[in-house]
């Protein structure tokens, strides 16, 4: 059979469909491995110094959160943005506890801090009483203004901040949605291992 121009033209849609299929399979694979997130948003703060945000009070008897804390901390910080009214935050809390437990020893390579977004102190305290308190620092951002400085568009979101004495901490990763073991291993662990 002779290959005519007509055959070639007819093959085009088939090739297009095959390409599209291959793309979808790659996307699904990436979804599984954690390096593709369909809900990912623009994260212009990645690679930037910790933003200027208003100093946040905490719940009674707990240390709050300010920009200065990122300047003095010696280890990387995992900052979790959460709220007591947020269901996916409930989903990620077991993993955060697991993480906090593994960080409990003195040579902790990571500090786990929290920023409570648009929440009442009483509701947040009740939630933490019930779910446990994995954060060594907690900022209560009741009006949500500090979260806007962090480019937060919803809860939960997570930031990884590496110590950088010159700029007072640098954001190296910003993720949306519940933090999972998969996301931790794909995005956070590599940064921690790269550290001398």
């Amino acid at each position, binding site marked *: 059979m002779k290959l005519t121009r007509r055959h070639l033209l007819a093959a085009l849609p088939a090739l297009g469909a095959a390409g599209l299929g291959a793309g979808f399979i790659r996307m699904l694979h990436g979804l599984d491995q954690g390096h593709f997130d369909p809900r990912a948003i623009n994260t*212009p703060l990645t690679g930037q110094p910790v933003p200027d945000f208003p100093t946040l009070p905490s719940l009674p008897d707990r240390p709050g959160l300010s920009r200065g804390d990122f300047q003095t901390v010696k280890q990387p910080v995992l900052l979790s943005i959460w709220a007591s009214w947020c269901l996916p935050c409930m989903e990620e809390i077991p993993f955060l506890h697991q993480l906090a437990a593994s960080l409990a020893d003195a040579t902790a390579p990571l500090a786990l801090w929290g920023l409570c977004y648009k929440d009442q102190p009483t509701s947040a305290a009740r939630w933490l009483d019930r779910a446990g308190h994995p954060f060594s620092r907690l900022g209560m951002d009741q009006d*949500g203004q500090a979260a806007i400085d962090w480019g937060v568009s919803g809860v939960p979101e997570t930031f990884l901040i590496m110590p950088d004495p010159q700029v007072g901490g640098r954001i190296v990763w910003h993720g949306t949605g519940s933090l999972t073991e998969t996301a931790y291993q794909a995005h956070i662990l590599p940064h921690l291992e790269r550290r001398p």
Partner: protein
Amino acid sequence: MRLLFALCLLFLTIPPSLAVDTPDEMLPDPALEQKAQQIGQQLRCLVCQNESIEESSAPLAKDLRHIVRQQLRQGRAPKDIEAWMVQRYGEFIRLRPAFSAMTALLWLMPVLSLMVALLLARRLWHRSAPPAPLTAEERHTLDSMLKKD
């Protein structure tokens, strides 16, 4: 039935409104308020991503509307307010993305597709042009062949 009709009529008469529905959210100066709305209509709500912050009723959109108005009152220029937003949420927050290397293809696509269409149309036009008329010699040959039959 009458009640249903009345209700329908009622809903039909609700004017299409922006999400800024509480007067305390609006600036007292109508000119400044209009400016705020113009800025807000160009900013994407990060929660309901196809709505502007002026249209969205998400709490974050309300906060951002408030910030736009607050900064306008402090005398900041619309350009600076947009830059403030882009610094936090990226170029994505602009409903009308700025022209840059990243967005060049997006902005130039209408011109490019028009050019391609014109080229294609020209080719088609030429192909469908009537064939050149017969020369005298060709006509003569044709006539003699037809006469033979």
